[in-house]
């Protein structure tokens, strides 16, 4: 009897170890990292037009400035879009979980877009809100990829241009195709603009003000890790994800 129990014990332990090992081998890991900037970026410029606007100007004591280069004291670089391509450098497609993901919000607040750099998935709802007491128009400018015989531009994603009254209902958009830096602009207040990147997978992140980013739950495999900044262009690294989190850092330089 004792022998039988011992045998069962050994079997169950072996089974448990096997299951755990198998689970561990296929476990998704995170890609974490930090982005830094070397060199001195051009000085940001105050939004004087905003201050001259009778409605928007009332919301500020001093003029807010552009924020193309979100740089910390030690060169930490924010607002960098970090994402994955496959090992050959092709877009990862068909992996979107956007339909079930919560909506991403782009707010118009203080006559500025918040955030200015964002990312979401194909099929994921983008909610655009007007928190201001003035009209905005949401003009979505997608990349032109061709023209019809009549000369009408064919764009990567559907373009929109919708007015949004103060206190008006949120606008909800979804985009079908991947696109880097899809532009949102307000033509009523031409200093308002934001860029959104659309991915057909959930493997992307935007670096914070501390320069750090985390791409969560990446399946094991080899990838190309891309860091894209609106002004500084793109950098790539090859990365292999196994059962442990991977750390990859980027350094951009002002030329």
């Amino acid at each position, binding site marked *: 009897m004792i022998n039988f129990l011992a045998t069962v014990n050994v079997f169950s332990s072996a089974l448990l170890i096997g299951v755990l090992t198998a689970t561990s081998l296929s476990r998704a890991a995170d890609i974490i990292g930090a982005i830094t900037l070397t060199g001195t970026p*051009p*000085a*940001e*410029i105050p*939004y*004087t*037009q905003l201050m001259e*606007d*009778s*409605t928007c100007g009332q919301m500020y004591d001093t003029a807010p400035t*552009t924020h*193309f280069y979100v740089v910390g004291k030690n060169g930490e670089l924010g607002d960098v879009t970090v994402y994955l391509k496959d090992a050959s450098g092709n877009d990862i497609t068909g992996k979107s979980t956007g339909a079930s993901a919560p909506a991403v919000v782009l707010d118009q607040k203080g006559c500025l877009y918040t955030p200015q750099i964002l990312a979401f998935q194909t099929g994921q709802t983008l909610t655009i809100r007007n928190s201001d007491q*003035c*009209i905005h*128009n949401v*003009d979505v*400018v997608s990349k032109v990829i061709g023209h019809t015989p009549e*000369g*009408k*531009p064919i764009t990567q994603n559907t*373009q929109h*241009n*919708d*007015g949004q*009254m103060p206190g008006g209902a949120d606008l909800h958009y979804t985009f079908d195709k991947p696109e880097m830096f899809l*532009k949102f*602009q*307000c*033509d*009523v*207040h*031409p*200093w*308002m*603009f934001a860029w959104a990147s659309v991915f057909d997978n959930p493997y992307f992140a935007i670096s914070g003000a501390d320069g750090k980013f985390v791409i969560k739950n990446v399946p094991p495999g080899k990838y190309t890790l891309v860091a894209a900044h609106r*002004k*500084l*262009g793109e950098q790539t690294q090859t990365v292999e994800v196994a059962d442990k989190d991977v750390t990859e850092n980027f350094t951009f330089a*002002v*030329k």
Partner: protein
Amino acid sequence: MKCGRNEMNESTINRPGARALHWFAVLTAVATFLLLGAGGLVTSHEAGMSVPDWPNSYGYNMFLFPPSQWMGGIFYEHTHRLWATVVGLMTTILAVWLCWKDARRWMKWLGVLAFLLVVAQGVLGGLRVVLKMDNLGAIHGVVGQTFFALMCAIALFTGGFWRAISEQKLNVPGPLRTMVLMTTILIFCQLILGSTMRAQHAGLSINTFPSAYGKIWPDTRPEAIARYNAQRIEVTNVNDITAFQVILQMVHRIFALGILISVILCAVQAWRLLGIRDTLTKFAFFWLGLITVQIGLGAATIWSNKAADVATAHVLVGALSLVTGALWCIIAFGRSARVPAAQTEAFGAFGTLAGNK
């Protein structure tokens, strides 16, 4: 609009009516000039899409859109639309008036052409908004300036000045006429370039003058373009610049130099061949003055980082430069026309010669 009737009895001709038509044509041309300015401000303020719908404005009938909502870019776009309807109405009245009162068949057709052009221009402007086509914006700009030249020509043809110069019958040498005509065509090409540049919505593709990024000819390799984009901080929603846009501005600069040289030659030749007291010589020197101012405004547009008022002034002086060249040609060719004396009179306003068809 009945335009088949091209004869007019002497009894129906009255001079106050002729003067009224002429001054109405002048008024329409002035209104068109102001409309060009309003349109220039729309593009200079990047406000072309600030009213997303057309012909309505934010769902309102455009004439009922509350002024309290005319804020920011909406002010420029909406007032441009309203003023365009005024010009459209004035052009329609002018076309009907020409068909009704002017005995010259070609003047009737000019009226019809103006009417069709103003309608086409309105539709172009609307489609540019609805279809979000920047290319249509460029065409809209060119058609607008062409329409302004047409309105100025109609104002000229309906005035006493046109009759007076026709009666002078002083020949303007062919080579001089050709030179001015070619220069005017060059200005028109320059206008197309300028309108295309503005429709790119990319701000200043070269932000230095007279050098271009410190060089005579700027580096347009991809890494250089990336560097230019990285260094510029946009305060309006303009697009990134491309090599095409950099080259476009360089061509615009070269054309400007070519036009300046060409207009100097025209003015000098007019002085030499027609004498300093001739109207066309004075007109040529006025033209030279305009071109000089225009080049100064082009430089100021760059130095001011494309300040909206400066850029719009550049558009307006460009329009005046085109019109000056066009009217110079019309006057010179009209003055030199080898036509029988009896028909020469028909160049006068209100077709004092009923038989001129």
